[in-house]
């Protein structure tokens, strides 16, 4: 259903109706913003990246192949834009404040907060491309879907994800941040 709406909106945009792009923005602004945030780790940067993603998508609409899902195409632009942004940015990425829900038990909460802080710090230190891989995996995409998005084979996705997690574990310490 959404796919049909996407195609209609794209067609109208290509005929010069800029307002038709509003439908596409409203439908995909949240997932694009979330993806950008998971890679660039900063809310304001994520907002800038997301805006740039939509502007670039509009400018490149003529190259969109309607045989594929519009969102997949947009997602690919979002990943590239986020990785490029994060790669160019020199300043250190600050771990984000509120990620996930904390447990209600105070002792467990403290342990969880500590672990979260360590993981966030480690995530901020790995390469943007590896973060993008982990973000796509966290989004529930299969190896095949990630491969299609990033232009890798399934096997390569699997090995790169493995390497990204190894790197993460290396940064967290031998116990992986969780004491046995």
């Amino acid at each position: 259903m959404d796919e049909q709406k996407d195609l209609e909106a794209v067609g109208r945009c290509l005929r010069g109706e800029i307002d038709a792009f509003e439908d596409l923005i409203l439908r995909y602004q949240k997932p694009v913003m979330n993806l950008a945030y998971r890679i660039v780790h900063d809310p304001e940067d994520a907002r800038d990246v997301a805006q740039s993603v939509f502007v670039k998508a509009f400018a490149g609409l003529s190259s969109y192949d309607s045989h594929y899902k519009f969102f997949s195409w947009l997602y690919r632009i979002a990943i590239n834009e986020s990785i490029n942004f994060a790669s160019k940015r020199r300043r250190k990425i600050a771990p984000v404040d509120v990620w996930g829900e904390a447990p209600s038990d105070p002792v467990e909460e403290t342990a969880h907060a500590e672990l979260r802080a360590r993981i966030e710090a480690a995530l901020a230190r790995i390469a943007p491309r590896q973060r993008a891989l982990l973000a796509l995996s966290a989004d529930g995409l299969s190896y095949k879907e990630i491969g299609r998005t990033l232009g890798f084979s399934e096997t390569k996705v699997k090995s790169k994800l493995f390497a990204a997690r190894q790197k993460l574990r290396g940064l967290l310490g031998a116990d992986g941040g969780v004491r046995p």
Partner: protein
Amino acid sequence: MIDRRLDRLMNQEIDGANSPAESAMLQKALETSGEARARYESLRAAQEILRGAEGPAPGPEFKDGVLAAVRRNARPAAPDRFSWRPAAFGPLRLKYALFFGLGLGLGLLILVVFRNRTIDAGFDARQLVGTVAEARSLRPAGDLRFDQGLVSQDLRLRYGDGCLVAEVSGSAAGDVELVLTFDKDRLSFDALRQTRGEQGGVTIEPGRLEIRTAGSHGYVLVFNVKGGLPLALNYRVGAGGSAVFTRDLSVTAEDVR
């Protein structure tokens, strides 16, 4: 100690890629190893943290900002074709226009140079190559060779598809005239290409074609034929106003192989 296989199973479990048997195998390993449990938990926690990470709420200003940027920065995303509209003359388009202009100038220059290398006496300057390519069933229709020391000539005739082609090549110590006379009601001159030699002169009249040349020379002449064979044709090579050689080149059905 966690081996690579167990590590792989953990990763696949996180990605939802384990088979039930692999999941059971991993579960068993996790029950018996605290180290494995800790590693798996850290992987799962990282995944959960990433999954739970939500970007800022877009808000209506986000959409407005994007649309404003689109209107400001991007032209409507119509298929990207070169346009001569005034808006197209941005720096990039101007670059294309310059390239186009240079290409056009170069093309004209080549045309002028090429034109100077061919004899142009007002005849139809269609590309001979194209004319001959259309006449696919050209067949040999006679040839002529002679060598008188100061003047030598080699002439080959081909006939077919309503045209007659004469290929002339030779050499002369001084100026020579190559004159072809023919029945103007049956043959009409179509095209000429100089294949070799210095630029000379050509005179074309109904029923008569004269080429003035010197030294080593080569021409291809094409005539349109009305009706069929035979065709009356005469060839004369002269020097200083007097004939050096004259030959009847009439083509009959027997000459066409």
